[in-house]
């Protein structure tokens, strides 16, 4: 198993820049998520780590060795494709033993290895079946089997659950995470599903338009988004982003929204002009005493909680509150925000302003 270091990685396809100077480090044994919307360059980054694309510039270190211009076959990594890419002309056993055959491993040893992997994945009973008739989950397991059978330095997975139906995804994602925990293998996992990334990842890189927006553990990224894009992309429903126009100075501990003052973590950066007040729905409170009022336009009941949509002077706000609270459409409600969770963004740069609260997260990233 190995550490993977990406340094200033860049990939151009003609005039189009798919990835621009990305840098991040994947520690040994980490379950690492590459997250972003489609076309953000996450798959290209993964393919460059695999050796299926050669980078235009930059370096890739796998286990201390610079491999960016080496062919895939010499990198000793395993790749799980979204559509599984099981060899259709081979049966399950042959598919799993294929990587070992390329290493010219003796067939008795291959047999033992395949049996071991089949036991781990619970696919011993289908070893001699053709891959054509398998269910999505079994195909997924065979693809995993082909990846883990030769103990590679790292596993690269390109939306491996994307082809499964929703019900089964949940189950497979748990299985995958459990498998990772048992083997402790460095895993790089590409997904566009932020929930999946939060659920499974030890660390997440959020990419957009070919560059890295933020890099960190899921909770840090959720609580302290570095950019407007991350704030919008992560979380369901997304972070509330209320535009306001003001001048803030270093050391400020409150801002005014439509004339109402709200406390925020102490700012360590000054800004002026178009700013955005960012607050997660679960940090919006319904507070009849507040002068900042909103009109309820929709109520979504979710069992333990409910999502209230309100129209405020600064735009739409969604609040996640306990399901027990009675709220009716058309009602006029005062709103409060949990002060220590607020992030202020500067629209002109798209970045979060440094504050006492997010300094630790944003400084190192």
């Amino acid at each position, binding site marked *: 198993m190995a550490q993977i270091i990406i340094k200033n990685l860049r990939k151009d396809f003609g005039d189009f820049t798919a990835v621009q100077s990305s840098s991040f480090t994947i520690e040994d044994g980490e379950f690492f998520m590459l997250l972003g919307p489609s076309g953000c360059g996450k798959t290209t980054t993964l393919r460059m780590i*695999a*050796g*299926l694309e050669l980078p235009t510039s930059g370096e890739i270190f796998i286990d201390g060795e610079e491999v960016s211009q080496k*062919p*895939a*076959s010499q990198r000793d*990594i*395993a*790749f799980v*494709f979204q*559509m599984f*890419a099981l*060899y*259709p*002309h081979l049966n399950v056993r042959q598919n799993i033993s*294929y*990587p070992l055959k*390329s*290493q010219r491993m003796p067939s008795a040893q291959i047999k033992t290895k395949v049996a071991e992997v089949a036991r781990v994945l619970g696919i011993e009973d289908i070893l001699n079946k053709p891959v054509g008739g398998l269910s999505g989950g079994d195909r997924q397991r065979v693809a995993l089997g*082909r990846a883990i059978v030769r103990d590679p330095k790292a596993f690269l997975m390109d939306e491996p659950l994307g082809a499964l139906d929703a019900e089964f995804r949940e189950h497979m994602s748990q299985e995958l995470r459990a498998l990772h925990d048992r083997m402790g293998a460095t895993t790089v996992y590409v997904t566009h599903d932020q929930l999946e990334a939060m659920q499974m990842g030890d660390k997440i890189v959020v990419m957009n338009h070919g560059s890295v927006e933020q890099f960190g553990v899921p909770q840090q990224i959720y609580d302290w988004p570095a950019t407007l894009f991350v704030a919008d992309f992560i979380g369901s429903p997304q972070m509330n982003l209320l535009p306001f126009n003001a001048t803030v100075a270093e050391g400020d501990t409150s801002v005014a929204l439509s004339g109402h003052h709200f406390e925020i973590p102490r700012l360590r950066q000054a800004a002026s002009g178009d700013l955005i007040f960012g607050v997660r729905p679960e940090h919006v409170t319904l507070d009849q005493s507040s002068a900042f009022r909103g009109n309820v336009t929709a109520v979504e009941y979710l069992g333990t909680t409910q999502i209230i949509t309100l129209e405020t002077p600064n735009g739409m706000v969604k609040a996640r509150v306990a399901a027990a609270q009675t709220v009716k459409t058309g009602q006029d409600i005062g709103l409060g925000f949990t002060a220590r969770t607020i992030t202020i963004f500067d629209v002109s740069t798209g970045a979060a302003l440094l504050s006492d609260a997010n300094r630790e997260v944003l400084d190192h990233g």
Partner: protein
Amino acid sequence: MSGYSVTEPSKRQKWFAGLLVITYALVTLMPLLWIIATGFKSPEDAISYPPKVLFEPSLEGYVNLFTTRTRITEGMKEGLQPPANWYEQIVRDSGTVIAGPSRYGQRFLNSVIIGFGSTFLAIFFGTLAAYAFSRFKVPLKDDLLFFILSTRMMPPIAVAIPMFLMFRQLGLNDTHLGMILLYTAVNLSLSVWLLKGFIDEIPLEYEEAALIDGYTRFQAFYKVVLPQAATGIASTAIFCLIFAWNEYAFAVLLTSGSAQTAPPFIPTIIGVGGQDWPAVAAGATIFLIPVMIFTILLRKHLLRGITFGAVRK
């Protein structure tokens, strides 16, 4: 489930469809059956009017196809030894004796060598070219593909004269190599285009998986891509073989002796010893067999080949 169904045809529709298929089969098979039947008729039965549907089968056509014969008079017959075997008997009954074997066997062998040889080459080069066009960034790819296709835009015989002069200069006239090269060249455009279509349909991931699994690009090609292109290769091979097998015009023009194929030879039978239609029919029947066997062996692939692209898996 019972009752009305949109997809399941009614009994009457099935019956009608069956009738259509049988009618079509009869229409298309009739000439074939007629040729096969004629091969087993006596020369008299073959040209009798009205045509005979029921006749006494005879192997005279087949014997005549493979032999050359000399006419003998009644008087000479007395002095000859009795016929040594069944085919000498047949020949003797029609008042001739066998002078020697005919050239049909040799011509047939030429057809096999040239037909299968050119098919093999067209498929070999076609697969490599199609793979390259499908997977690699080839400069001027579209123009090259169009150029390859454009060689099909005129009837091949339009270049017969330059071809003839070229072959004479190069000493390829009436050689197996010359005919194999010619048919390969004509078939290549078909094979490159057909095979490119098939290879395009094979997802890239399979090769990438093989690359990751530690195989080289070429290993990935022949271990992963080729087995999956088997269907396309088989059906393309049938098309190529059928062309090379049946080609007549170039064969007449460019071969006369040692490399002559069966198609130009069969008509020459007519000139030898009267209009021997059973021998011609016998020659045509035997000529059908290799392509028929080849097609039957690969027919599973052929059907998929014809409908390829229509259904996405």
